[in-house]
C-alpha cells in the first residue's frame, strides 16, 4: 500500500487518539494494582506473561480454535436458515403475518436463558453452544433481512414489472441486491451476539474454548492473570470478527448504500 504524505498524516490522526486511550487505560490499571498491592488481581505485565505461557504450551490456540469453530458452525447455520427465511417473510405477506409474532416473542429471550434447555436437549458437548449461537444470531438475521425486503424502493420493483422479467431475474437482480446491505447489517449484529454467547456457553461445562479458559483459570488456583488474558483475547477476536464482516460493506454491489 502506498501512502502519500497527507494520507500518512490522516492515518496518524485516526490511529493516535484511540491508541492513547488504550495506553492510558493500561497505565491506570497498572498504577491502581501497584498502589492497592493486590495479591490476586494481576498487573498488565502479569497478564502478558500468563498469556505467553499459554501461547508456548499451545493451549491458547486450542481454546481459540474451539470457540471459533463453535461460532462458525452456529452462525453459519443461522445464515443458512435466517436469510432465506427473512427473504420469504419479507416477500410473502402471509408468511410475515404468520411467523413474525412468534419470532418477535422469542427474540428478546436472552440466549443465556436457553442454556438449561440446551444442556437438556444437547448435553454438554459441542452441540449445546452451537445451538445457543444459532438461536442468538438467527433472529437478528431474520429481522434485518425481512425489513430489508420491506424497504425496497418501489420504483425498482415497478421497473422490474415494467420490463416483464422472470421471477428468477427479479430475485437475483433486484430483490437480493437491494436487500444485501441490510443482510450485512444483520450479519454484523449476529456475529457480535454469537461471540458474546459462545463465551457464556463455554463457561458452563465444556473442556475447551475461551469461556472455559476463563472459568477454569479461576477455579484451578485463582489464576486471575489468565482470566484477564482470556478477556483481552476475547475482545481482540471480537474486534477482528467485526472487521471481517465490515469488509463485506466494500463489495461493489453494496457500495451504493454507503456513498452519498
Amino acid at each position, binding site marked *: 500500500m502506498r501512502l502519500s504524505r497527507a494520507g500518512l498524516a490522516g492515518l496518524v490522526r485516526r490511529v493516535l487518539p484511540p491508541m492513547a486511550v488504550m495506553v492510558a487505560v493500561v497505565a491506570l490499571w497498572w498504577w491502581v494494582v501497584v498502589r492497592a498491592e493486590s495479591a490476586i488481581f494481576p498487573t498488565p505485565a502479569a497478564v502478558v506473561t500468563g498469556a505467553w505461557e499459554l501461547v508456548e504450551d499451545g493451549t491458547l490456540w486450542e481454546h481459540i480454535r474451539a470457540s471459533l469453530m463453535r461460532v462458525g458452525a452456529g452462525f453459519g447455520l443461522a445464515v443458512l436458515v435466517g436469510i432465506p427465511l427473512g427473504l420469504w417473510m419479507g416477500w410473502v405477506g402471509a408468511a410475515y403475518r404468520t411467523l413474525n409474532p412468534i419470532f418477535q416473542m422469542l427474540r428478546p429471550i436472552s440466549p443465556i436463558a436457553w442454556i438449561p434447555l440446551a444442556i437438556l436437549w444437547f448435553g454438554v458437548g459441542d452441540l449445546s453452544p452451537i445451538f445457543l449461537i444459532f438461536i442468538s444470531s438467527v433472529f437478528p438475521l431474520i429481522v434485518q433481512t425481512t425489513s430489508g425486503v420491506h424497504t425496497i424502493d418501489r420504483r425498482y420493483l415497478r421497473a422490474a414489472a*415494467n420490463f416483464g422479467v422472470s421471477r428468477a431475474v427479479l430475485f437475483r437482480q433486484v430483490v437480493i*441486491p437491494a436487500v444485501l446491505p441490510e443482510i450485512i447489517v444483520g450479519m454484523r449484529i449476529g456475529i457480535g451476539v454469537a461471540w458474546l454467547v459462545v463465551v457464556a456457553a463455554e463457561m458452563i461445562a465444556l473442556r475447551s474454548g475461551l469461556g472455559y479458559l476463563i472459568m477454569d483459570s479461576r477455579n484451578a488456583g485463582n489464576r486471575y492473570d489468565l482470566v484477564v488474558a482470556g478477556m483481552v483475547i476475547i475482545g481482540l477476536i471480537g474486534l477482528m470478527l467485526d472487521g471481517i464482516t465490515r469488509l463485506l460493506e466494500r463489495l461493489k454491489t453494496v457500495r451504493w448504500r454507503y456513498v452519498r
Partner: protein
Amino acid sequence: MSADRPPKLSVRGVRKQFVSAKGGALPVIDDVSLDVQEGEFVAIVGPSGCGKSTLMNVIAGFERPDAGSVLLDGVPLAGPGPRGIVISQHGSVFPWLNVQQNLMFGLGDVHGADGGARAALADHYAAVVGLKGFESAYPHELSGGMLKRVELARALIVKPELLYLDEPFSALDALMNLRMRNELLRVLQEERHTVLLITHDVEEAVYMADRVLVLSPRPATIQASFEVTMPHPRRLGSPAAQVLREAILKELGL
C-alpha cells in the same frame, strides 16, 4: 387513418378516482380519451397535481381504470410490460448494477446463454446515448444527466413499441434539461419510436412533440389539442413557437 389499422395506443373514456382520507371519493381522471399513432410524439401538459401521473400509471398498466380502457394496437392492455417502458422523474436505474448490467436488465438473465451478444448490444446502446467508456461505471459514480441516459438506453434496448416519459427531465438542472431534450430528439431520429410525454413544462412539449394535449385541473379531462408542425430543430424563440406557447398557456389559465 384507415379503419383496418387501429392506433398504436388508444385510451377510451378512462376514469379513475381515489378514496380520500375522509372516506369520500376523489375523482382524479374524468373521461379521458386520446389516440397516439405509430411513430407519433404526443405530449400531455397539465398543471401540477392534475392527475398526470395517475393517467400515466393507468396508460402504462400499473393501475386499473375505474371505467374505460387502454388499447395497444386495438387490444386491451392486461398490465405493465416491456411493450411500453416508463421513464419517470426520479428514475429507476438500479444502483447495484453497473451501466452495462443495467442496460442488459430488460434482456433477461445476465448469467444465461448468449451473454456475449447481450453485452455487445448493451455496449451499442451505451454508445447511442453517449455513454461510451462508462459501461462498467456504477450509478453512484454518474451525474444526473448520465443516469437519464442510462435509463433511456435501458428502455430503448428492449425495443419498446411505446416510450412513456413522465416528467423525465424535471429533476435535472435547467441546462441539463435542455441538453437532454436534444439528446432525446437525436436518439429518436436514429430509432423511430412512438412517444407519450407527460410534463408541466410547456416549452418542453412545444420543443419536442408533434401534438400537444392540454389537461384541465383535477379531475383531468383533455381540454385542448394543438398540432405542432414546425420542423426540427425547433427554435423556441421563433414567432410560431411563441404563438403556440401563448395559446397553450392560455388554455392552462396563464
